[in-house]
């Protein structure tokens, strides 16, 4: 029984924390949040130089070939720092889509560029509000040409390429779905930047009008390919969420210990003590679920889909609770723009929706349970 990260992995985590605590302060986050840019290009460059974008990419494709456990510890630190860089979209989504569905040639084309930090990639699935269902995918792929519209694509404004879930024959539902890669600088692609809750990340609607697209994986397998991508991304994102939730708890604790009311630290009032205890419980449960996800991801276990849904739901709930009760613990000052609390409140929601809402993951989780103890 060794349900823990190795000493090397912990060392990598410490390095990542040290690096980010220097290069990615909340001032860094605030600059992107309040500025025009959708990410911190300098930080992104350095992250790539550290080799992090290639952590789980096999050496054969220019990566470090370290594996997913290493990527998990880095993800947690990126989450703690609210790093305003297209890491999750490029590494958890785009790169994984290629690893799952890409041909050898496609991997050779794109993965090395990701490892070198030369390519920002993302993933586009939703076309409107509500559940993403096979029959609701109206973006069509025909003869290498893509037409349709995807909404709220994370890092859309700055991405070079996008993997798109598209329909190859109207009305075919799941049977007709296929993934494809599109160069966003190519003809027939229009991007409109979204106004979103979390301005420290960029999002955009992307319209395709006969844009050139190269198929990724087989027609008819687009839905299951996308699900596998999301399962992996959900686990990595869960580490970002757990990292963020832990920072919220630390902020709330630090404030409560140093803020005095009625002559005593507010941390001595049970209303605050028990609030923070609940945060701690949620965060620990979320961390443990994320660990199980990490194990499943790193071993490619059969339990991966259930582990992914559990990690996703648990981490989303923990980050939501910790980020909102951190503001509450701070009181009025915590709701001011000048404080950092709201960055976490907003990132909690962004990370909780960008890979699909809790609701959908819960439904998926129970479906997995039905089959597992059927």
């Amino acid at each position, binding site marked *: 029984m060794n349900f823990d990260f190795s000493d090397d992995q912990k060392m990598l985590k410490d390095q990542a924390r040290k690096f980010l605590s220097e290069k990615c302060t909340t001032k860094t986050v605030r600059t992107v949040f309040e500025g025009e840019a959708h990410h911190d290009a300098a930080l992104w460059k350095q992250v790539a130089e550290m080799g992090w974008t290639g952590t789980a990419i096999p050496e054969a494709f220019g990566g470090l070939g370290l594996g997913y456990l290493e990527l998990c510890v880095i993800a947690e630190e990126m989450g703690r720092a609210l790093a305003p860089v297209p890491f999750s979209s490029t590494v958890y989504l785009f790169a994984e889509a290629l690893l799952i569905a890409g041909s050898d040639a496609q991997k050779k084309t794109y993965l090395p560029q990701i490892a070198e930090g030369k390519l920002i990639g993302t993933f586009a*699935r*939703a076309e*409107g*509000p*509500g*559940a*993403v*269902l096979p029959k*609701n995918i109206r973006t069509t792929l025909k003869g290498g040409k893509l037409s349709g519209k995807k*909404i*709220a694509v994370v890092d859309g404004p700055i991405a070079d390429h996008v993997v798109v879930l598209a329909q190859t024959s109207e009305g075919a539902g799941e049977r007709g779905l296929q993934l494809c890669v599109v160069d966003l600088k190519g003809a027939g692609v229009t991007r409109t930047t*979204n*106004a*979103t*809750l*979390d301005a420290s990340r960029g*999002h955009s*609607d992307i319209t395709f009008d006969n844009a050139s697209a190269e198929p990724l994986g087989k027609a008819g397998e687009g839905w299951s390919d996308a699900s596998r991508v999301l399962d992996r991304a959900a686990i990595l994102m869960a580490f970002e969420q757990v990292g963020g939730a832990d920072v919220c708890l630390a902020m709330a604790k630090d404030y409560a*210990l*140093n*803020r*005095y*009311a*009625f*002559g*005593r*630290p507010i941390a001595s*009032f049970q*209303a*605050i003590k028990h609030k923070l205890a609940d945060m701690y419980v949620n965060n620990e449960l979320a961390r443990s679920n994320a660990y199980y996800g990490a194990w499943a991801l790193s071993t490619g276990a059969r339990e991966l889909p259930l582990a992914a849904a559990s990690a996703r739901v648990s981490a989303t709930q923990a980050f*939501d609770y910790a980020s*909102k009760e951190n*503001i*509450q613990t701070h*009181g*009025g*000052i*915590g*709701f*001011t*723009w*000048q*404080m950092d*609390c*709201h960055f976490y*409140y907003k990132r909690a*929601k*962004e990370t*909780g*929706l*960008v890979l*699909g*809402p*809790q*609701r*959908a993951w819960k*439904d998926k989780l129970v479906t997995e349970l039905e089959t597992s103890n059927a």
Partner: protein
Amino acid sequence: MDFEDSPEEAAFRKEVRTWLDGNATRREGKRKIDPEDMENGAANEMAASKAWQKVKAKAGYARITWPKGMGGIGGTPMQSIIFGQEESKYDVANGGPFAIGLGMCIPTLMAYGDEDAKKRYVWPAVQGDEIWCQLFSEPAGGSDVANLRTKAEKNADGTWTINGSKIWTTGAQFSNFGIILTRTDPNVPKHKGLTMFYIDMKDPGVDIRPIKQASGGSGFNEIFFTDVKVKDSQRLGEVGQGWQVALTTLMHERLAVGGGTGGGLDVAQLMTLARGIELEDGPAVKNAAVREKMADWYVRSAGLRYTTMRTMTALSQGKQPGPEASIAKIVVASKLQDLSAFAMDLEGEAGILMGEEAPVGGAFQGGWLSSPGLRIAGGTDEILRNIIAERVLGLPGDIRVDKDVPFNKIPTGR
């Protein structure tokens, strides 16, 4: 049990309607004003508010419960509720900027000010020529309101000099005057060393800076006072009696804020959204999880609505209103946060969008962004629970370690 007016109430309502028909025009739906705008004092709306206030003051409808000639008709609380119900059907700018001044400051002035002050200030405030704000909260205060540090020092010539800062002040930027709670003696226990004054907000020593909130808006201000001179005649109540004076004022505040319904965002809007959204098992409005939530929130909203009716009944029977205001804010603030988050989850990836791009024009994102503030402003959830526990249920107060301790000896944080 009925929802009908009593004969007297019906008569008054008729009288009010007649007057309103003669002085304003009815409208359909909501009046188009952005509260943020309002608070920032958008000039035109402000002008309209002042004009309408003047008309009401002359007719005695500005402060119905106040005496004739002072903007009132010596009416009952029920009558002002009836007037409010009717007024809300007309296209008028009703009262935003005067609520605090007339609801809290002027009553305090009337209770503790001298005759000259009343002559000078009450009427201009009533008819909307002058606006007042309330200056109690401080960065170090928060839930512990009396823990304030703004100093008022007595000068040789009998005047006072005020230095310090206040925070969370609504409408300071367009106020003419404010009542300010200051510390005049740090060597006695917290509540004993306070004194209340009113000041001229246009004094050069008063520096008003808007506070930007996490939601993006700036409804509140932080205010810095540098050597602001005030006459001793601007003192309200005795030196050292400031806390007793403040209690008169605060009595009204929680009721005022408590009214907040979270912008009316509720189950009705959630249902509108749910009707337009498709989930794995069909339309969201038919989804059992959505229906369960809608029911949970509906019974809380309905419960509040009917609790208000019980209060109004008590009022019309001449009884004191209960603690409903505290209940209302506890229920409404968390409901707004939970319901908005739930709706955004239904919207899915589109849930992160704001404004026009977002479903239902971003109503839920707006509610979700403002809800943390609603859970804090005018008494946090935790303070309100304490208030219910102590004032309604009669449970003991929290253990007080700062009791009988001189203010300047009370432990403070970093």
